[in-house]
């Protein structure tokens, strides 16, 4: 339902759906117990169940331990492994942030995948279209294009939510499909497609727009690139925005209690649009990082589920910017280590997806962890009524 305020602007009825309450609970749990203990136990439990699954498929205990050892080695066992972990974590930090900042304002951004694709496409376009520019002009242009592309893709669901009440979950899912097919189409147009190729693949990003490898001077196999630094700067900026600015105050107020936000004179409409623009931009930045730092070109499916993984990362990181970094490193490490495990220990990388999924199940259902480990979770104390003080 929509409401009109006296200045004639339409605002939408504050969202008190189950989703909203669910995420409010996740994101407002700031005490250390729910913030740290539950995620840590969730990871532990997921790893144990993962081990059981490996054994059920016929491996011995020793082989299982070897597989986990390979996982560990592949993620932090060497400088190269750490570089791989950081490379995998870089886009996850950004898509995780994207989902987290939207959570904070009470919106569920499922559209990271599409925003990442569009951001990647705009970044790649700028990356190959200009030749002869110095890197200090070309690279920032390409990175900014990535942010802008994603921001436009985030703006649409934010705008529709704010003006018509269209649920952002539905719209962002639809926007993902549009982005996927649009990418596939664009990659076969003359503008994008590499000369002499029939398959959908873009031209290569000019060297002047490639994100430099941070450790390339030391070992050319180390792929970690400048995108990591950009992502970490984004983390600090998002934290600053959320907790140190009036804009962030509004985001958090709208996310926590949109009735009170309206009472306080905040424009819920403006918040919805602005936060989706920023969320989209962050996911777009992730896409830019991938094409400018890792792939050097775009091809269909270069998003590789990173946008969806952002949801998991934000959940595990409790929508806290620094929590997101920790969660992204964990997921990045699992992915990097999983490749090593697959190569050396004969356990498929699919196991990593299983472990990641289990982690999320346990984080999203803290009562499960509470029951297993007999720790009290905040789910048990949510229903306290105190009369007028409730």
């Amino acid at each position, binding site marked *: 339902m929509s409401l009109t305020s006296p200045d004639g602007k339409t605002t939408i009825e504050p969202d008190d759906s189950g989703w909203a309450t669910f995420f409010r609970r996740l994101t407002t749990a700031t005490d250390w117990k729910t913030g740290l203990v539950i995620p840590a136990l969730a990871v532990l439990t997921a790893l144990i169940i993962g081990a059981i699954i490996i054994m059920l498929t016929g491996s011995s205990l020793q082989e299982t331990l070897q597989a986990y050892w390979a996982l560990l080695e592949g993620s932090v066992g060497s400088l190269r492994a750490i570089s791989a972990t950081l490379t995998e974590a870089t886009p996850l930090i950004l898509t995780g942030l994207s989902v987290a900042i939207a959570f904070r304002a009470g919106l569920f951004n499922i559209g990271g995948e599409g925003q990442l694709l569009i951001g990647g496409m705009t970044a790649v376009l700028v990356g190959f279209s200009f030749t002869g520019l110095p890197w200090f002009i070309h690279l920032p242009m390409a990175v900014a294009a990535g942010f802008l592309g994603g921001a436009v893709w985030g703006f649409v669901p934010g705008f529709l939510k704010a003006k018509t009440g269209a649920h952002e979950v539905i719209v962002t899912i639809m926007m993902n499909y549009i982005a996927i097919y649009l990418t596939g189409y664009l990659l076969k147009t003359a503008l994008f497609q590499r000369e002499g190729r029939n398959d959908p693949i873009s031209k290569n990003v000019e060297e002047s727009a490639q994100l430099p490898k941070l450790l390339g001077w030391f070992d050319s196999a180390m792929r970690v690139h400048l995108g990591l630094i950009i992502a970490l700067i984004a983390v600090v900026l998002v934290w600053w925005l959320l907790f140190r600015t009036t804009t962030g105050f509004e985001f958090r107020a709208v996310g926590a209690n949109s009735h009170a936000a309206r*009472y306080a004179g905040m424009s819920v409409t403006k918040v919805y649009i602005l936060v989706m623009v920023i969320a989209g931009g962050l996911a777009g930045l992730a896409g830019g990082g991938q094409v400018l730092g890792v792939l050097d070109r775009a091809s269909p499916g270069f998003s590789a589920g990173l946008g969806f993984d952002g949801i998991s990362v934000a959940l595990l990181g409790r929508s806290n910017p620094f929590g997101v970094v920790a969660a992204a490193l964990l997921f990045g490490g699992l992915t990097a280590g999983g490749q090593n495990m697959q190569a050396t220990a004969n356990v498929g990388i699919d196991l990593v997806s299983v472990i990641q999924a289990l982690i999320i199940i346990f984080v999203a259902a803290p009562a499960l962890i509470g029951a297993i480990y007999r720790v009290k979770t905040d789910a048990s104390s949510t229903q306290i009524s105190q009369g007028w003080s409730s």
Partner: protein
Amino acid sequence: MELQLKGITKQFPGVLANDDVTLTARSGKVLALIGENGAGKSTLMNVLSGLYHPDAGEIIIDGQVQKFDDPGDAIKAGIGMVHQHFMLVPVFSVWENVVLGIEPTRAGGVLSRKEARREVKEISERFGLAVDPDVLVEDIPVGIQQRVEIIKVLLRGAKILVFDEPTAVLTPQEVEEFFGIVAELKGRGATIIFITHKLKEALAIADDITVLRGGKVVGHADPATATPEDLAAMMVGRDIELVVEKSEAEPGAGVLELADVTMLDDYGRALLKDISFSVRAGEIVGVAGIQGNGQTELVEAITGLLPISRGRITFEGKDITRYSPRDRHTAGIAHVPEDRNHMGMIGSFSVAENLVLDSYYAQPFSRGIRLQGDVIRDSAEALVEQFDVRPPIISNTGGALSGGNAQKMIVAREFSRDVPLVVCAQPTRGIDVGSIEYIHEQIVKKRDEGKAILIVSTELDEIFALSDRILVMYDGRIVAELKASEATPTEVGLYMAGRAA
């Protein structure tokens, strides 16, 4: 059943909410539990109903020591909690709400509607509650919703009933009916615990009164002999003026003016009808009326939260009819909202953040888009001290404050603004007598500083204690305008009931 609490102690971080509390509630008797805001009444009842685990102490029912791991255990032991904040599903019918969670089923897990409806009807009739099992909860008034809550706990076999501030949102008529229900339950041997801030109510229906202060039991009173003044003094530990002293008003220029304000809802029904009045500088105008006669809409029309369909609102000579809530805030209207939990504060925000909830955007709390954390904290420290918000820990969340203290926080935020108009809806709902005294003093002080004050209250006592001029609302209209010094409560009461024309 006889209920004994022995040595109940409950510690929250930084607050000893219950300190060695011992009390007895007897079968067929009403025990009133009174005490200041934050005295620990709700906490004690949450311990009793299994929501909190006490750090020490015992709950004894009919001589048996009980151990409650969760609310389910307390329900099994016969304890029924009627929450102030009703936990009903609006789109479900009465009987569906009542049986939710304990649905009687036929073989194969099929819900037995007939059985369920019959049980609800039977309880409703046995206790004279007169509730139709088939209507939707969203269609019934608050007073009846409360009865649905009562049926819920009775159906679960409750013999000990706890009411946490049950009368705070009831109309005077509903309060009367509620007392009738309590008498009926009492007659059937129920043990009743009744929390209230309205001392007259405690004196009217209780058999025993227990007073809590700072988490401790500080005394008992006999309702047959005690006076409201006695109780107030026991609660607060000093003498209280139940009515503030104030001088004759000296009204100045008009500050707020409403001309023919009409508000229609989505279906074209009038919520406000041709409302015209003004509030002048240096006077308190009180809007009396039974809940639901358009007061909420009136306040939201003035503060810009709801648009009006016709008419004009003028503030200090400017037409503000089309101003947004933010523009009205900036122009100089302060607003203490009626619904403190859903509007007035954000439970997950800190006290400091709540204290700038609507002024964070302005100097000195922010510069550009940067929030000035130090300024915000310093100002919060000062306000919490000045308005006696307890505990005075500004980093705590607003949600951890007791009901009355949350209200004090909101009043502190709005009253600390130096603006020409303050609109207060139910400024002292759920507040203890000591704090009522303080808030009333603040309101009168604002008036004497030459501010215009509009008070909306369903409490006639409050209207008479504060107002210089009284407007009575009935069915979306102003049906009477009276000089407070000349009006009588009976007269106003008649207008409120729509009986005098």
